[in-house]
Structure formats: structure tokens, C-alpha cells
């Protein structure tokens, strides 16, 4: 029997479990079915007394077991303390595979864990599978999203990070009889080398919106100005959607960084993505091509965005969008 697939349970600053935890759990259950009697194990490192709040969520998302480390010093995410707690627990669990969210937390922590355990880590995967040898085959984009590479690890545990929204959670109506095990790690003598002096929550709530938005209205350089983005905001409000942006629009200061979609921004999968004045560079497309439907509005009929769009409208955004706002 295999020792299991471990899923990192990411606790956010506001003390909820990041949805990527359940997306990974859904995938882990699927991968485990291709392996030999492999349990899906959650690892939660947090301040004390959080586990109780999460038990139901773990049970409904297919976890066979959850190992939790509950320490005062884990109140806030700090790389060194979290790495120590996680590595200690992982050595005891000895899993075959470790999956973590490719969030800022996951991408900060995962390499610290993999390097300490002298094993391989594949970052930011878009597909995971078990190959004929029973190994984790992790596929990720490289070269600015233009080349896909399937990567294997010679060592164990085999580790991968996956962005939010790449996989879908598999919520079970019935509860699994998940086993909860407390793992003690002594951090009393350990002081973090970092001190968090201050925290400012992001003003643009689009960050969370984008993750769950059904409709996204995205603007590029073609929106020209902040006023152009105000127009998009109105358009999005009409549709009950969120606003996103291309990197060029972000670089020009038309929209905040957290609205950026693409290779160096967010990956989004709404039901409808409306690209306005976006050319459709591959680095942008990799972040939105899994949207269910894509509509592109661009005044250049040869813009590459039309190659990925289900519907295209050739025209000036400043002409079309006000009409849409009035008619919707």
C-alpha cells in the first residue's frame, strides 16, 4: 500500500481554507484511484483551534486522513516556521506525492520543502496524471506558455504546485469518515528570522472576485486610459461580473496588478470572458483560454485574440461598449 498523496491545506490570513485546497483534493482522489490503495492526506499547519472549523470541509472533500500541527507560533504565515512544521510532519507521513497550491504561499513554501527533502518540484502545473510506472506526471507551461513540458521526479516525495482554478473541487454530499491526527512539533525555541510589521489588505477586491467570477470583462492597452477602465467597470457591473486586465494595461497603470490575467498573473475560468482591446498574446491567453466562452472586441480583425474567441466583434471599444451598457 502506498503511503499517500498529501495535499497542503492552505490557511489564508482571514483563517479560511483556500479553495485551491479542495481543488487539489479533488484531483488527488482521482490520482489515488490510479494508484494502489493510496490515501489522500491533508496537512494543516495553523494556530491552535482552527481544525474544528475545517473538519466538515475535509470530510466532504474526500480526505481519508488529515494531519494537523497546531501551534501559537503558526498564527501568521512565516516561511521558516511553516517550513519547519511542514517538513517535520511530512517526514512522519512519508507521502509519495505532495500537492500544493501555486499561490504566493505555496510557491514560497514548496521549494523550501522540496529542497530540504532533496526531491523534485514541478511548479505551476496545468495537468497531473499517474503514468504507467505509477509515477506523478506533472505537465506545465514553459517558454512563456508556448511549450508544455511533462516532468517526472526521480526522488520521492514527488512534488507539484497547481494554480487555483485549474482543477475543480469534487464536493461529496456524504461525509467521509476522515481520521484526524494531531502532530506535535516543538517550535518553542524557534524564533522566526522575519517579523511582519504591517499588513495592508488589497484594496481591489477583484482578486477574490476573479477566482469565482462567472463573467469577466477584461481590458487591454486598447482601453487606453483609466477612464476606459471605468467604462469596463460599468460594463462588468451591468453583467454582474468582475474586471480583469492584460499585463500591458497593468504596466500602463490602467488597472491594478491583481487584476492581471495570464502567465504572470491569474488563471481564470469564468463562464464568459469578454476581451476588450486585448491583442491575445500567448502569455495572456494561457490565463484565460479555459473560460467556457470567450468573446473578443477588437478593432483589428487580424488580432490573434480572435483565434481563441468563440465570438468576435470587429470594432472600436469606445463605440461598442457604451452601446452594450445601454442595451443589456
Amino acid at each position: 500500500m502506498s503511503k499517500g498523496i498529501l495535499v497542503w491545506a492552505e490557511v489564508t490570513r482571514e483563517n479560511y481554507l483556500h479553495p485551491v485546497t479542495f481543488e487539489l483534493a479533488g484531483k488527488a482522489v482521482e490520482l489515488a484511484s490510479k494508484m494502489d490503495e493510496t490515501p489522500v492526506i491533508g496537512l494543516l499547519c495553523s494556530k491552535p483551534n482552527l481544525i474544528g472549523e475545517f473538519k466538515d470541509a475535509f470530510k466532504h472533500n474526500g480526505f481519508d486522513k488529515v494531519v494537523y500541527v497546531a501551534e501559537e507560533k503558526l498564527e501568521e504565515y512565516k516561511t521558516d516556521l511553516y517550513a519547519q512544521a511542514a517538513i517535520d510532519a511530512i517526514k512522519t507521513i512519508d507521502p509519495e506525492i505532495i500537492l500544493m497550491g501555486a499561490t504566493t504561499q505555496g510557491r514560497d513554501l514548496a521549494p523550501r520543502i522540496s529542497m530540504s527533502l532533496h526531491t523534485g518540484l514541478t511548479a505551476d502545473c496545468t495537468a497531473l496524471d499517474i503514468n504507467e510506472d505509477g509515477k506523478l506526471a506533472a505537465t506545465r507551461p514553459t517558454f512563456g506558455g508556448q511549450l508544455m513540458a511533462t516532468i517526472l521526479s526521480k526522488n520521492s516525495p514527488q512534488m507539484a504546485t497547481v494554480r487555483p482554478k485549474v482543477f475543480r473541487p469534487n464536493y461529496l454530499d456524504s461525509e467521509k469518515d476522515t481520521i484526524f491526527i494531531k502532530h506535535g512539533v516543538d517550535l518553542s525555541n524557534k524564533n522566526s528570522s522575519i517579523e511582519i510589521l504591517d499588513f495592508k489588505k488589497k484594496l481591489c477586491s477583484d482578486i477574490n472576485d476573479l477566482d469565482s467570477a462567472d463573467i469577466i470583462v477584461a481590458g487591454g492597452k486598447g482601453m487606453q486610459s483609466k477612464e476606459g477602465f471605468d467604462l469596463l467597470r460599468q460594463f462588468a457591473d451591468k453583467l454582474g461580473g468582475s474586471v480583469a486586465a492584460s499585463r500591458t494595461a497593468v504596466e500602463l497603470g490602467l488597472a491594478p496588478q491583481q487584476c492581471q490575467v495570464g502567465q504572470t498573473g491569474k488563471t481564470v475560468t469564468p463562464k464568459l470572458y469578454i476581451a476588450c482591446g486585448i491583442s491575445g498574446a500567448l502569455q495572456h491567453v494561457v490565463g484565460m483560454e479555459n473560460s467556457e466562452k470567450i468573446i473578443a472586441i477588437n478593432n483589428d480583425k487580424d488580432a490573434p485574440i480572435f483565434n481563441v474567441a468563440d465570438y468576435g466583434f470587429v470594432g472600436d471599444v469606445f463605440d461598442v461598449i457604451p452601446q452594450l451598457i445601454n442595451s443589456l
Partner: protein
Amino acid sequence: MNIILCIKQVPDTTDIKWTENNTIQREGLESVVNPYDVYALESALDLKSRYEDINISALTMGPSQAEKALRKVIALGADKGILLCDKKFAGADTYATAKTIAAAIKSKLQDYDLILCGQFAVDGDTAQTGPGIATFLDIPQVTYVKEIVEYTRGYVTVIRETDEGLEKIRVKLPAVICILKGEFETTRPTINGIIRAQKSKILKYGIDDIPLCPVETGLKGSPTYVSRAFRALKRDVNCKFIGDVKELVQVINSVRGKHE
């Protein structure tokens, strides 16, 4: 303060040509200094303009051509260049790269306070080498840093941009800091810089200079390997062009499940 700036020479990913077999045509591919490493250089130069006695040593591991990247950052204001170059280093994944760089720093450049890396490399985009170097040197790391606010003896204070917001963090030195794009003016090489870059002697170290065996470096020392590489699949659609706004409204309404 002694800063080690880790840089990588990367192919210009905006200019990729494909062969008939859907592999990347590597000949003729232009090389550039990874843009995020340039941001890291800019934050180092910013420190240099604000504090006395800041020394910037640029370090890269790569083929002998990577010397060009070192001279480029010297022209932009780095003080010297160090090239880790050996056939035995070739084919390294992030684990072997971080291990080799850390071994070189430990044995050849002990006297450092701050290691700066770009947050990502645009070719691989793994964001792992910086944390890896920190792990092998057993020093703290701060990733996703937008700005280095302050340097006081033994500490730096930085602004870190996470998915949730901005953290102001004070970290004890020595530490590894990985830099995101900040709000810097793009640095341009100066005439003096270019002359200095041409004259600079690049320090070179190979496998015999660092305390690692050949099996620990390069392809052999890498736990991961690429089993398959293929061209990213395009979304398989045929775009339906719409002629008037009325019809567009209908399409939008039908997709969002609203009928009139």
C-alpha cells in the same frame, strides 16, 4: 553591504520560432538577461544610491556565453561578475542549480549580506531557485518583494506582495530576497559602465572550485527530468464574427443564461 545578485540568461520568449516537429528552434534565438533579474539589479542599484559601501557582485551559472549577461549588468551598474561554468553543471534543474550556486557562495563568496534574485525566470518560470539557494545556505528568504524600504545594520525591511495584500517585513541578514517588478525607472547603461564592463575580469569557477562532486550537479544531480515536451494546444474554436451590436447583446445574454 555586500550584495550577490543572481542572474540568468534566458532566451527571448517573445520571439520563439517553431520547427516542423513542433520543437523550439533554438538556433538564432536571442538571449536576454531575465527581466525579473534586471528588476533585482534595479533594487540593488537603488540601495547603492541610498547607502554607503554597497557592493554588487553579479553571479550566474551557465555556458560561457552567459558572460555576456554578466557584462550587461556590469554596464548597468553591478561591480563585478562571477560565472559558474562547467560541462558538469549543464542540464541542471532548479534543485541542482540552487545547490551549485549555494556551494559556490559558501566556498567563494562567504562575505555576503544579501542575495537578490528575480522572482521568476521567464523561460522556466519556476520561482524555485531563490528559495532553493536560501534553503541550501540555511538562511531566511522573502519572496514576491516589490520594494526594499530600508536597510539598517543586520536587517532589511521590504514590502512583500502576496495574493492577499501587502506585508511589510523585516528580515534578518543574511537573507535571500526575490524581487517582483517594482516601480523603478528602467536603468540604461552609461558610457562609463560600458567601458567598465568591457574591462572587467569575470571570475570563473568550475566543478573543481566548489565543494560538490560531479554527480551532485547538472543533469546527474537533478531529481527532475522532462519526459515529454510539446507545443501548447490552441483552444479549438472557430471564431464566429458578429456584425452588429444587437446580435452581440443576444449572444452575451444567451451565454449568461438570460433570455428576453
